[in-house]
């Protein structure tokens, strides 16, 4: 425990960076993913196709490969993403947007068909049907899976450790490498910080899920 206490500033700095990455990339991914989901249910085939391509491409690509692209490949054709933090934000939000899109889309599909039919029957347009009737109901059932997506994002920020961002995992690795005899304690300290983030969030998702299920 002394080891963690001695290196507490390093852990806290790493933890702050992990939080910043999660919040920034999470916010961006929520916006982009929701737009993508709207495109995927839109009546315009080209836009649907583009959104499907984006989602399928990123869902079947490892996150490490996205980082690899931004850090090593993109500079080869003149795109120099600012190294470190912002590269990580771009990679994480692009990757997570695909999963947000899927969560939102399955939420839209989960709204009973009769709701949309009724909205159409009283003459609402596509935009009104979606905005006034379907989405408000979809949001309720989408929140728990979205929290799960954000939990996955919080864990995924650790990939940035491999690409010059000293977030929580990288901070822990430094401490572990500096104290090889106590590497397990050093990494256990990292684990505690992640669990502080992920377990309550997972609990919240479970509670909300039961609530929504009960209301239906």
């Amino acid at each position: 425990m002394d080891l963690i206490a001695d290196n507490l500033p390093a852990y806290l700095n790493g933890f702050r960076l992990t939080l910043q990455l999660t919040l920034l990339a999470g916010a961006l991914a929520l916006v982009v993913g929701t737009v993508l989901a709207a495109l995927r249910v839109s009546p315009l085939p080209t836009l649907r196709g583009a959104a499907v391509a984006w989602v399928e491409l990123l869902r079947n690509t490892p996150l490490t490969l996205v980082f690899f692209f931004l850090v090593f490949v993109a500079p080869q054709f003149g795109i120099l993403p600012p190294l470190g933090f912002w590269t990580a934000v771009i990679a994480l939000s692009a990757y997570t947007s695909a999963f947000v899109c899927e969560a939102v889309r399955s939420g839209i599909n989960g709204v009973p068909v009769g709701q949309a039919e009724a909205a159409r029957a009283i003459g609402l347009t596509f935009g009104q049907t979606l905005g006034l009737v379907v989405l408000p109901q979809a949001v309720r059932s989408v929140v728990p899976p979205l929290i799960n997506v954000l939990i996955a994002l919080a864990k995924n920020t650790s990939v940035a450790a491999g690409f010059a961002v000293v977030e929580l995992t990288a901070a822990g690795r430094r401490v572990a490498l500096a104290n090889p005899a106590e590497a397990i304690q050093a990494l256990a300290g990292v684990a505690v910080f992640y669990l502080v983030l992920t377990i309550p969030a997972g609990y919240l998702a479970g509670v909300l899920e039961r609530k929504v299920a009960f209301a239906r």
Partner: protein
Amino acid sequence: MSSVLYDQPGPRARRRERIGSVAGALALIVLLALAYRYAEQRGLFGADRWDVLYDPPKNQTAEDVWRSMVVVGLGATLRAAVVAAPLALVLGLVLAMWRTTRIGWLRAPATVVIELFRGLPVLLMMLFALLGFGWDAFAAVVFGLTVYNMAIIAEILRAGLASLPRGQSEAAAAIGLSRWQTMRLVLLPQAVRTMLPSLVAQLVVLLKDSSLGFIVGYPELLKAMQNNAQYFGNRYYVALFVLGAGTYLVVNLSLTRLAVWLQGRSARTAGRSGTDPALTAAAAATAGGGPGGTGSAV
């Protein structure tokens, strides 16, 4: 393609849609054309950027390059996944059964193990094995993949068990099967079949996560890309990336297709055998799995 969100379009709406569709397509084409011009101006399509794939410099043959990527690199990626996947499945099965035993205090350790490993990044667990236990890179990758995915698989199977109608275990008890026989002969086969799509989707996640080996020094596909680029020159990064990323997409998309196909199949058979497909779908959703699996992906 019809949707409840909008009517079968009439002539005017169809015209509007066509206009919108063309406008959208035009916008996309303009974007792509701009990207193409940008890339061309930087010589991205010159032969000196791509000849590594068919006529590499430094007296190497194209066969060497492809072999180092598709055979050696992908081979190492698959080897880690192929060792970790059965381990994760077996341990996940054990954990799932452990967590559903009837004696409350016995369940607690399984719950702790599952919650612990589910809430930690895979990379951190690889580092535990690498730095904490002093294992080599391959063992570290397999360890990380195994402990993370066994927790997720345990949750998937638990959701599958929970989705079975109570009558199944009651009927098994009625004909005199023991707890263990009920589990082995009646409940597990159904739970596994219900959750097969989620399980395959989780295997895609496992395969994707093996790329974290790049960070802990395991020479897999990404490392093969980097090694080639460093040997032949950085200008080949684009060509090598296209080959490497294409390899990943081919493997993962085939596995995803398999999951979708299995889902269609199990939905059909479930309908026939009288299990409520909606219940099954709901269970798949709560497990955070399914081909749309979100909760657990790296």
